[in-house]
């Protein structure tokens, strides 16, 4: 088989797969421009017969979509920023320092990734009660501030930074904090990008914990809001599709910003697992 034919076949396969992947999105986006009676018609359509923007306009009217959107965005960015910092600094400590019980602690960090939410969610909930953190963003941000996954990725990648480089800085009189902020942190950009993408996504789509913790509507997050929207306006499919379409945008933007470094970042860390 010639190289050209091979390339044609591969592209063909890829395009088929892309179409399968994208169709639900297209259908959702198109549906968000349909009237509800067209969506619930017994003879379904793919493209809207009657193009309408009403669903987008009404989303804000029927529930406070922008507010929920802003809440989710704020929480996701805050958690992602904190996790990046805690992961990098912990990864640095695990990679470049010696201390008693280091392996034990690192084992614990890795072990936490294995613990299902269901084991800890009940006691955590009672703890939040005792802390009086219910209905507060503290209860969402603080328990998410450290990520075992992030520390693991960072330790792997920071191990590859040559010790000589850090030693040289120390000899020049740089403090440990300086070394971390000015040398290690900038060198870890690729891994930071991958953690950013993962963590942003996890926070963005987190459902159960915010659902249990947040009770006032104006503090609620988007993924819970989308479910509530369905519970309360279970008949407004156009509205649901419009809201969903908008909710995808920020994660896509984050991905597009970080994607170049994303793959390099993963390649630099977990591969050598």
């Amino acid at each position, binding site marked *: 088989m010639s190289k050209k034919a091979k390339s044609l076949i591969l592209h063909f396969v890829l395009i088929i797969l892309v179409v399968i992947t994208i169709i639900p999105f297209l259908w959702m986006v198109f549906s968000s421009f349909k009237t509800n009676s067209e969506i619930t018609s017994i003879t379904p359509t793919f493209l809207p017969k009657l193009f309408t923007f009403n669903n987008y306009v009404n989303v804000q009217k029927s529930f406070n979509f*922008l507010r929920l959107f*802003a809440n989710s965005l704020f929480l996701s960015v*805050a958690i992602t920023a904190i996790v990046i910092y805690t992961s990098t600094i912990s990864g640095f400590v695990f990679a470049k320092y010696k201390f008693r019980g280091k392996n034990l602690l690192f084992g614990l960090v890795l072990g936490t990734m294995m613990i299902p939410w269901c084991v800890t969610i009940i006691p955590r909930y009672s703890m939040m009660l005792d802390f009086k953190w219910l209905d507060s963003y503290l209860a969402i941000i603080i328990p998410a501030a450290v990520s075992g996954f992030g520390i693991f990725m960072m330790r792997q990648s920071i191990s590859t930074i040559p010790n000589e480089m850090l030693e040289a800085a120390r000899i020049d009189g740089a403090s440990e904090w300086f070394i971390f902020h000015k040398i290690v942190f900038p060198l870890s950009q690729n891994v930071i990008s991958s953690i950013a993408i993962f963590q942003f996504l996890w926070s963005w789509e987190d459902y159960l914990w915010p659902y*249990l913790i947040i009770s006032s509507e*104006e503090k609620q997050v988007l993924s819970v809001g989308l479910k509530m929207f*369905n519970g309360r306006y279970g*008949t407004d499919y156009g509205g649901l599709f419009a809201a969903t379409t908008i909710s995808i945008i920020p994660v896509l933007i984050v991905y597009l*910003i970080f994607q170049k470094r994303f793959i390099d970042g993963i390649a630099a860390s977990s591969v050598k697992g």
Partner: protein
Amino acid sequence: MKKIFSAILVFTLLLSLVGCSSGESKPSKKLETDTTKEKNLPVLGENVKFDPNILINNGEPKEVEFWVWDSAEIFQSIVDGFEKIYPNISIKIVSHPWGDYWTKLPLALQNGEGPALFCVHNSQHDNLINNMEPYDIDIKDLTADFTGAENHVIDDKVYYIDYGMMTGSIFYNKDMWTEAGLTDEDIPATWDEFIEVAKKLTKKDSKGNITQAGFNYNSDVKSMIMGLNYQKGELLFKEDGKTPNINNDTMKENMQFLLDLYNVHGIGSKDFGVTDAESFGQGQSAMVYKWGWYYNQLSNDYPDINFGVFRIPTPDKDVPFAYDRYNGESTIGISSTVDDASKEIAQAFIRYFMSNDEALKELCIKYSIFPSKKTLAEDADILSHPVLKTLSTTVDYLIWPGPFPSTIETTLQQSFEDIIYNDSSIEDSLENGNNKIKADMEGVDFSSVESQYKHIENK
């Protein structure tokens, strides 16, 4: 990279600021200190009285929350009337969808983060009662005004009562009715007649697939099946009033009857119209059996559907043991875990609500609830409401099993789904269901009140 990162941060902060300032959907009203003690407003109510000429919270401003699961607008109008009397009080209505409501409310009450006022449903009695505050109203006054209030006395205290009874009826699409050549004369009284009518309302395409169902019960057999049993004189609980009576011959017969409606008579399909309520609203099913709340949902969500209501059919022309089951719709509850000022406001609001016939009437009409307030039983507006008019003919023959826990309905629905979708035998499904309900009810303090039914001797 650093720049991008900080740009995103700034952007987010800006956005959340915008969210904070513009996002408040309904700003709490501006509260002012109330100094007019003597408002010269009339005292409401006959026995349960509400006197507006007393300051609450010493006239100091205070806001409390009021949780509802549905129809916030109905409660809002009642709240508006109350707030008008007291410029220092704001009652903020918070609405959660039904499922979420019951996940959050019990825990919120337990830890004192909950609302001062909340709608109660008696199927959740056990999860709520420990954190409820008794009404500050004389029981004698309550029983004088409300039928059945005596059933809710616990250790000489009342935590909530029923403001009315809700039950099911058949909703039918009038346009389809006319299209099929049917008139009011054809409204069926027995299930056999019902099946004949439903056949006329069913449409199929050339391949035999249903395109319009005559009758649809998908996703909601649970609210219907117990009524069918009562029609034949079978009770939901055994004689001790505690053991669930799920696995019996009448139940088997009725499950088979429901299956036959689809499989033998072909008047609908388990695969046509996944939920009955939506399918009727979307104009794809001609008849559904729904409880009173559906009237409000149809009017709100599907204003284009031209529908009518008739009484649930019976096995034969005679008056059955009972036409159907009804459930008491509970009044509003007060949290025992909020501060005293909030409780004071809540108590005043309860009095306002219970003595205010107009408010109760509006609520009963919106939800199609037959009022238990004695002064409303003969009310012209109530009797002209289509669902309630139907109900008024059967109201003496409706039975209430008591505030049984939600697991009974949930499990019966699961058992039926096992039969219709999972090909499991009626016998096995009911046996499993019976065991599951027994396990779930262990430790739940419940006694059936079936024995207090007016016509229990006809069994």
